[in-house]
C-alpha cells in the first residue's frame, strides 16, 4: 500500500480554447485532509472531477488509492465517497429512501441508521429532500458520500451557501471522518475553512498551483503576522508606506492599501503619525491576523472573492 491516497502529475485539461487545468501536480497522503484553495474558475472542480474519474484529463497521470481509473474504475468507486458541487438529489424521495438508494450501490458500507444519527438527520428521515434546508441537504449529500464506508472522501465546495452553524456542523463531520482514518480532498474558496480543516493546502489559480504547504507554513511565507488595511484622502505614496517600521509587504487594496506587518504595536502608531504629517484624512482603518487570503493577494494581486 502506497503512502499516498492521491498522486497526479502534469495534469492538463483544455475546454475549447480555455485551459482549465495547466500542468498540476498533487500528492495527498493517506489520512490527511488536503484542500484545494482558489477563486471560482481556478480549475478546482475540473481537477477534483478528474481525480474522481468523472472527467478524463488531456495529459498527465492520475493514481488514486494505488489504482488507475482506466483499469480499476468500478473497484475504485467502491472505495470513494463523493459529494459534487451543485448536485440536487431527487426532491420527491425522503431522506431515508435516498440514503438506502445510495447504500444499495455499494457492496459493503455503513449502516444507514447509524449514518442518519451521526449526521443528525434522524428527525428528518421521513421528510422529502425538497423540503430540507440547505444545511440539511448538504448533510444528506455527505451521508450519501459516506454510505459506502469510503477510504477517501471528495468534497467539492461543501459549505458554499450555508449558514455559519451549518458550516461548523459540516466541518465537524469531516473531522470525525478523518479521525476514523479517512483521507479527505476538498475544494473551497473560503480561507477559514481551509485553515480550520486542512492539514495541507494547495492554492491554485488559472489551473496552476501557486503555493503548497500547511496553512501555517503558507501564512509564514508572508513574513507578516498581521495585516493593516486603510484608506486615506488623499492617497499616501507607496514609498512612504514601505519605509514604515515593521512593514514587510505593501499591496494596493481598492482605494486604499494593505500592509503586511510584524507587530501592530510597532507599525500602527507610525502609520498614524505619517498620515498626520502628510495632512491626510484617515477614511478607514482595520487590522486582522494574516490569513491564506492575504497570501493569495500577495501572490496574485487579487482577492479570492472577486478574482
Amino acid at each position, binding site marked *: 500500500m502506497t503512502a499516498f491516497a492521491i498522486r497526479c502529475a502534469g495534469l492538463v485539461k483544455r475546454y475549447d480554447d480555455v485551459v482549465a487545468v495547466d500542468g498540476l501536480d498533487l500528492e495527498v497522503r493517506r489520512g490527511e485532509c488536503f484542500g484545494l484553495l482558489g477563486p471560482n474558475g481556478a480549475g478546482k472542480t475540473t481537477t477534483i472531477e478528474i481525480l474522481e474519474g468523472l472527467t478524463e484529463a488531456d495529459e498527465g497521470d492520475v493514481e488514486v488509492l494505488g489504482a488507475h481509473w482506466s483499469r480499476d474504475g468500478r473497484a475504485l468507486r467502491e472505495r470513494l465517497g463523493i459529494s459534487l458541487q451543485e448536485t440536487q438529489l431527487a426532491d420527491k424521495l425522503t431522506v431515508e429512501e435516498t440514503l*438506502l438508494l445510495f447504500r444499495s450501490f455499494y*457492496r459493503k458500507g455503513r449502516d444507514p441508521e447509524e449514518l442518519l444519527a451521526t449526521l443528525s438527520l434522524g428527525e428528518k428521515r421521513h421528510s422529502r429532500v425538497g423540503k430540507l434546508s440547505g444545511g440539511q441537504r448538504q448533510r444528506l449529500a455527505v451521508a450519501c458520500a459516506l454510505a459506502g464506508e469510503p477510504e477517501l472522501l471528495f468534497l467539492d465546495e461543501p459549505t458554499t451557501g450555508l449558514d455559519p452553524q451549518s458550516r461548523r456542523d459540516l466541518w465537524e463531520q469531516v473531522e470525525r471522518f478523518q479521525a476514523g482514518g479517512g483521507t479527505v480532498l476538498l475544494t473551497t474558496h473560503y480561507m477559514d475553512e481551509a485553515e480550520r480543516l486542512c492539514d495541507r493546502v494547495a492554492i491554485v489559480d488559472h489551473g496552476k498551483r501557486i503555493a503548497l504547504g500547511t496553512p501555517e507554513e503558507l501564512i509564514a511565507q508572508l513574513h507578516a503576522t498581521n495585516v493593516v488595511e486603510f484608506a486615506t484622502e488623499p492617497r499616501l505614496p507607496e514609498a512612504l508606506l514601505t519605509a514604515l517600521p515593521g512593514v514587510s509587504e505593501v499591496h494596493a487594496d481598492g482605494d486604499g492599501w494593505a500592509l503586511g506587518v510584524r507587530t501592530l504595536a510597532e507599525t500602527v502608531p507610525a502609520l498614524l503619525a505619517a498620515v498626520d504629517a502628510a495632512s491626510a484624512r484617515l477614511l478607514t482603518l482595520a487590522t486582522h491576523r494574516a490569513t491564506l487570503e492575504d497570501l493569495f493577494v500577495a501572490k496574485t494581486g487579487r482577492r479570492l472573492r472577486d478574482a
Partner: protein
Amino acid sequence: MRRPFPALGELTLARLREFLREPEALFWVFAFPVLLALALGLAFRGKAPERIPVGVADGPGAAAIATTLGRSPALLPRVYADSTGREALRTGKISLLVEDDGGLVYRYDPTRPDARAARLEVDDALQRAAGRIDPLRPRETRSTEPGSRYIDFLVPGLLGLNLMGTGMWGLGFSIVTARTRKLLKRLAATPMRRSEYLLSQMLARLVFLVFEVAVLVGFGWLAFGVEVRGSLGALALVSLLGAASFAGLGLLVSSRTKTVEGVSGLMNLVMLPMWLLSGTFFSWERFPEAVHPFIRALPLTALNDALRAVMTEGRPLSALGLELGVLALTGTVSFLVAVRVFRWQ
C-alpha cells in the same frame, strides 16, 4: 430501518415513488385517456343516423323540391332566399344546395364525405319523385352492434396512444431532469452499474403499464361495452411489448439532451407524425397507398393494429408477426443505441 434491496430494486422503487408523488403525471397517465375516451365515445355514440342538412335556393319550384326532399329519412331540407343559400353552404351549415336556373343544379364540395352522401340521397329522392323506378330493391340491415362502432375502433387506438405518450414522457422527463440537476453525474460517481439505472427506468414504466391498460380497457368495457374478443394474455403481451418499445424510444430521445425544453421538442418531433398517421382516431388506410409501407413501419401503427387485432378481431398473436416484429425491433435498437450514446453529465 430496513436493509436496502439490490441496486436495481432500489432504483426501480425510487422511480415508482417519484412518479406516484407527482399528481400531474398521474393525471396524464390515468385520467386523461379515460376523459378522452369518454368525450369521443359520447360524441360518436351509436344513435339514429342524423339527417343531413341540405338547402334549396328560393325560386318557382323550391317549395315542391323541399317537400320531396323532406320525405327522405336521410335529409333535412331548408329553403334559402337569394345568396344566403351559398353562404350557408360555404360555412358548412348545409352539405348541399339545390338550385334551379332552368335545369336543376347540385352545388356541393365533393371532397366532403357528408356532401357526397347528400348528393346521393338528394338525387335519389328527386329521381324517384320524378318517376324513376329502381330495378333493384335490396333490403337493408343496420350494423351497430358492439365491435363495429367507432368507440370499438377508438379504445384500442387510445390505449396505443397512451402507451406511447407515457412511455416517452415518463422516461424522457425523469432522465433529462436528473441530468440537469446533476443527479446522473452523482450516480455515475458511485459503483452503480449504469445499465441497471437505465433498466430500472424501463422496469418502473412496465409496472404502471398494468394499471394503465386495466384502467382504460376497464373503462371502455364498463362505459361503452367495448369487449376484448381475443385473449387477455395476448392483450397483456402486446401492451408489454408496446410499452417496452416506447420506453426504449424515450430512453433514446433523452439519452443526450441537456434541457427539458430540448427533450420536449424532440419528443413532439417523434410523436407528432405518429399521432397523425398511425390510425389512432381514423384508419391509416385513408392515406395514399404510396405512404402505407412507411406508416406501417411506425411503432405506433404496429401497436394500434396489434391491439385492434386482439381486442376487436380476437386474432391470436401468431397472426401479428409483422406488428410484433416492428415493436421488438424498435425497442431493442433504441435501447442498445441509447446505452451506447447515453450522456451522464
